[in-house]
């Protein structure tokens, strides 16, 4: 190749490469220029304005006692806050975000956000814009938790410093996960919510968190958060909620029971394992669903003042089965009342009856409340504990 041609090619290469290097390291974000958002709150008011609440972590406050950090300042006072709340309002989530950047010193960083919290007012209007952002933006994690606030505004909850975790959103996430593990209320990730939404017949759900007050040390009133119910959606709007019993029933039906307790009047049982199946049956135009539940438990509390006999064990098992069945029934009744298929009955029918589903699907809203539901519970009481005779006999 002639010398001139070669030089020309090299010059071209250089020209292509150089602007890149001259502009600096484009994607490099130093950690201390990021504000790590641990929880995001979403409120919408009656004019359609969106208020976003950002709970971000102040890293220097986390490392309380270790000496050799540049920069963290000790604030006077009893409680060091490791989080910071900021709020901004705009006509859409991103508009609110752009206003946030006007007074924030750092770029918000969402990759570690564990909680997306929605104010009660907001969910009744529909949270679709949020869902779209969630799916479209690559920074959000599919495993973050969707949570509805039992109070009017999300911002109320995000500000409450609660208990052992000094990062409140992480603490709340842990709370929700724990309540799901103990089979009280569901734990719903963004991915699960999205999948329910996509199904067109299944109703999305999300746990609800509320505030309660209690008197703490030194007589001061402390506000704490707790999980109080399950929100039921139709599409992107909340249309109702399930209480504690109904939520448990729901979990029983959709095979999300892990550990927990079953309480009957004379005894309490600790759940060791549980499995459930939804078996659909189509008879002409009538949909029949059988919920089969298989459960194993151990006896942890017996209030009956009697010795344990084999018959008594059977009695307890039967009592347990009845209690579980009634919980599930309660959930089914509520879902009929709301006309929301929170169990995924529709999808179950779809899986088994491919052809018929095409006709049934558009009419599902009407068909749903007329479904015959049968609940079959099998319980096994495995262990009765260390003692088999009563301490005080009747």
């Amino acid at each position, binding site marked *: *190749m002639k010398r001139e041609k070669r030089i020309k*090619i090299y010059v*071209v*290469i250089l020209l*292509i*490469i150089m*602007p*890149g290097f001259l*502009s600096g390291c*484009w*994607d490099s974000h130093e950690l201390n220029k990021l504000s790590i958002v641990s929880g995001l709150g979403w409120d919408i008011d009656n004019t359609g304005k969106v208020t976003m609440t950002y709970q971000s972590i102040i890293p220097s406050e986390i490392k309380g006692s270790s000496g050799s950090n540049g920069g963290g300042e000790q604030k006077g006072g009893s409680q060091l806050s490791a989080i910071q709340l900021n709020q901004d309002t705009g006509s859409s989530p991103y508009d609110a975000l752009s206003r946030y950047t006007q007074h924030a010193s750092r770029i918000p960083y969402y990759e570690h956000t564990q909680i997306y919290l929605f104010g009660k007012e907001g969910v009744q209007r529909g949270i679709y814009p949020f869902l779209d952002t969630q*799916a479209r933006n*690559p920074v959000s*994690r*599919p*495993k973050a938790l969707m949570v509805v606030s039992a109070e009017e505004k999300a911002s109320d909850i995000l500000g409450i410093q609660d208990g052992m975790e000094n990062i409140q959103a992480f603490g709340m996430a842990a709370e929700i996960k724990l309540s799901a593990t103990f089979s009280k209320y569901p734990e719903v990730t963004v*991915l699960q919510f*999205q*999948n329910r939404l*996509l*199904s067109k017949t299944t109703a999305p759900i999300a746990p609800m968190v509320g505030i309660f007050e209690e008197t703490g040390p030194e007589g001061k009133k402390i506000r704490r958060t707790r999980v109080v119910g399950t929100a039921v959606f139709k599409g992107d709007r909340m249309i109702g909620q399930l209480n504690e019993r109904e939520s448990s029933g729901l979990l029983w039906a959709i095979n999300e029971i892990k550990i927990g307790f079953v309480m009957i009047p004379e005894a309490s049982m600790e759940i060791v394992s549980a499995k459930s199946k939804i078996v659909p049956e189509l008879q002409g135009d009538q949909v029949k669903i059988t919920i089969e539940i298989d459960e194993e438990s151990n006896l942890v509390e017996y209030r009956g003042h009697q010795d344990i006999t084999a018959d008594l064990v059977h009695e307890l098992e039967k009592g347990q089965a009845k209690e579980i069945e009634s919980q599930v029934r309660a959930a089914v009744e509520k879902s009929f009342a709301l006309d929301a298929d929170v169990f995924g009955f529709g*999808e179950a029918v*779809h*899986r*088994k009856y*491919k052809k018929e589903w095409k006709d049934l699907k558009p009419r599902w809203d009407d068909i749903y409340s007329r479904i015959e539901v049968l609940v079959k519970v099998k319980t096994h009481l495995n262990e009765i504990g260390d003692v088999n005779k009563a301490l005080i006999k009747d």
Partner: protein
Amino acid sequence: MALEKGRISNFQLSVLIIGFVFGSSVIISPGGKGAGHDAWIACAIGLMEGLLIAWIFTALTKQFKDKTIMEINSLVYGKILGKGISLLFIWYLFHLSALVLTNYTHFFKLQIYPATPNTVTLLLLILVCASTVGRGIEVLARLSIILVPIIILVVFSDTLLLIPHIDFNNLMPVLDVPSGKLLLASHGAASFPFAETVAFLMVLAFVDKPEKAPSAVFGGLLIVGFMLIMAVARNAAVLGPMAEITIYPTYLAAQVIDIGDILTRLQVLVAISLITMGFIKITVLLYGTVLGLAQVFNLHSYRPIILPVGILMVIFALTNVGNTQEMVDFAEQGYPFYAIPFQIGIPLITLVVAKLRKLPQTGGDQV
């Protein structure tokens, strides 16, 4: 014809094929769109079609041992027509490589480095590919023996770690999709990525035991085919209906991995293995393009044109699609048909004509 003195073994050939087919399959899942949660079935059918196509072009190379498709074309069609067809094939390789680069660019721009200019990412990648091509096919084969097992390991561990999240209900009901759509998606899976192995028509000439080469090709295709089917099925099982909506299902699935709160964020492993697989695929394609050009134009070495061709590929990749949706549309609807003449047409017709003309006769190997 001293353009390429290296020789590769059949084992290296299989491994190279595995790496090549994996290529950009992480980004655009094969058999994806239109088949819904039956995508894995589409993938399986596509694999069979791919095997068929592989059978065709390996028959061609068995007929003409030690010759690349360029040389074969000239023998079969005569010099002028042969070179014309060879140029068409070279165009296909070039275009395919640019397409892979495009896939790459959009994935990166979205998920990993939003602010970095595409130019830089692509240029750096092409530079590595170019330097490897310059070292000859042997070096690429040796490299693939190191890289491909790592990739396989990553794919397997990805799947293993997702086992807790797999819900087979998501895959049911089976064959829910109308068969027309399914067949279309299958053909899509065949043309991308299985039948792209037609590019190996440039490589098969350099295998040291040409008689065993077809079984090496089939073996490699089967292995990587099964792994892809497994990956597609796993994505659908883990992600449920979201797998159809998202553009990058494997990446999303990797974000779900969470073992004990420590093993999270493994999606970065997916991204890294993506770069590696893309490297293998682009290097093979670049090699084919450059070697082909050298053979058609009777150059004494392909080394001087490696870098210019590579840069042209980058420029093409940067300019050929306006936005990501165009890329996806082309991949789903345009490419399966656009590729037919190159993947099936050229090998099949050449094979038929060669058999009719009772070629090769002994002796003579001009291009």
